[in-house]
């Protein structure tokens, strides 16, 4: 059966995923909106940066974040100057890492949803006296709702499945940075295959369920 440490890891993982997803929705929405609407020459570059975590090994992202947030990195110096201390090996550091790591999984569905809405509803709203912000909340958000659901679910699930970045910048501190994926790694290292099975099977079941719901929603939800 699962130990107290396993449950602590699960709780920490869910907490990390929830906080990360919330932050990503707030940051990702304007980024996705900009990417969907801009004709700027920067669109390609920004889009590529957002997509980088899709192709880079998590160790690379983790390595650079570690350097940046470390005592001699620019981010580290800033956080120290602000009296926040250093981010690596803390929950806050994990959140920062996860936000980068899961960024494309939130931005891309949102961008696609915004692009699918097209120009017309925005023009219609303008001819009905709605300003830009008003239009965003009264027309864009409701029309892009399926995109937001997809983005939130993928962002959450992907953060739950994170391992490399966590190991690089978070280490393996119980109740602080030891998430499920790291806990499984520890179990395997210790040859505790039974425990590793419980957690691993749980992850498989969770991931399958999430993707299953997402896909059946897409097929059934003829919007």
């Amino acid at each position, binding site marked *: 059966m699962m130990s107290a440490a396993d449950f602590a890891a699960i709780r920490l993982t869910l907490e990390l995923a929830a906080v990360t997803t919330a932050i990503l929705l707030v940051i990702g929405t304007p980024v996705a909106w900009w990417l969907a609407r801009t004709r700027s020459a920067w669109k390609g570059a920004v889009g590529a940066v957002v997509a980088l975590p899709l192709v880079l090994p998590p160790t690379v992202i983790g390595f650079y974040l570690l350097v940046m947030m470390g005592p001699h990195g620019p981010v580290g110096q800033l956080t120290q100057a602000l009296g926040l201390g250093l981010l690596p090996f803390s929950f806050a550091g994990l959140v920062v890492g996860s936000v980068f790591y899961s960024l494309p999984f939130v931005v891309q569905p949102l961008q696609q949803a915004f692009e699918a809405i097209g120009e*017309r509803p925005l023009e219609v709203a303008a*001819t009905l006296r709605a300003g830009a912000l008003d239009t965003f909340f*009264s*027309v864009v958000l409701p029309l892009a709702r399926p995109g937001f659901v997809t983005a939130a679910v993928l962002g959450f699930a992907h953060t739950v499945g994170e391992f490399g970045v966590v190991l690089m910048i978070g280490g393996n501190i119980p109740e602080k940075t030891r998430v499920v994926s790291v806990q499984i790694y520890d179990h395997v290292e210790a040859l505790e295959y039974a425990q590793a099975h419980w957690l691993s099977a749980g992850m498989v079941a969770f991931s399958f369920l999430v993707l299953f719901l997402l896909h059946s929603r897409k097929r059934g939800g003829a919007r």
Partner: protein
Amino acid sequence: MSSAAAEPLPGAGIEACFRLAWPGFALDAALQLPGRGVSALFGHSGSGKTTLLRCLAGLERATDGYLAVRGEVWQDDARAVFVPTHRRPLGYVFQEASLFPHLSVRRNLEFGLRRVAAAERRVSLDHAIALLGIEPLLERMPERLSGGERQRVAIARALATSPRLLLMDEPLAALDAQRKAEILPYLERLHGELDIPVVYVSHAPEEVARLADHVVLLRDGRVLASGAIDEVMPRLDLPFAHDEEAFVVVDAQVAGRDERFALTRLEFGGLPLWITGLEAPLGAQVRARVLARDVSLALAERHDSSILNVLPARVVSLDDASPGRTLVRLDVAGRALLARITTRSAVQMGIAPGMSLFAQVKGVALLR
């Protein structure tokens, strides 16, 4: 004829001037439209009529533009004035109804209404609903409406904002003939019941003839002609008159009827014009259409033919329509008629400008 009278009063009409250059297309249009009634922007696709309409709405940003609507300046680039679309008191009906799919018909109607200050509301929601006959649809979602119903809701939605200018971009183009026929009467009602100037984009002469009071003819982003419909359509130097189905419109009054033979007598400029049928009520203002090919000419007034309408006319000008055919512009009691006859007849009869003769009108159709 009455071009001075048709000139809009300063400040009462719509004054617009837009310049815009895109790759492969340039708009360079200056026009004055009357502050009431329906003005049609007419032209082929690519003539710039939709772009011009979008400039009027502020949806397209002409670089060097000026627009004043009934005395209010909405755009004046010389003085860096540009009122954004959502601050312009206008209504816009797109070619496809573009209802918000996530809102019911009622919430669609309320979308614009809610954003208009109470003091500026002059068209009530109930009035807009009644005008377009959409009462039974209010609780439905847009996806459950037919194309014609959607367009009626879109028109009511625009009206509910109490616009001071109503812009319509081929609102009937996406509909089949039956749906068109379903909506046209509603558009005519707008015209009759509301004092809102309408700018209506169309490439269908039939629609223009039924709805418009003023016509702007566009070609390649430029204004070819602009004026009252009964002045622009008979002009021999414009493509209207050379159309296979060329016609003129005659605004007339229902002056009498002959119950026995089921005929109605219209009167225009003191002359009678008989049409078959008894639908039009006595005293009503109606608009009739006379096709150029339905008008033939005679040098003497004849009473030995089956043609009912024989009107005294004066030849204004002639033009070759196509090989072997001649277009004759006539003045009948101050109104213009077109006759398309064979060139041989024109030569044999010695038809020339200034000549008095008789127009035999074979067919008259009531448009509204």
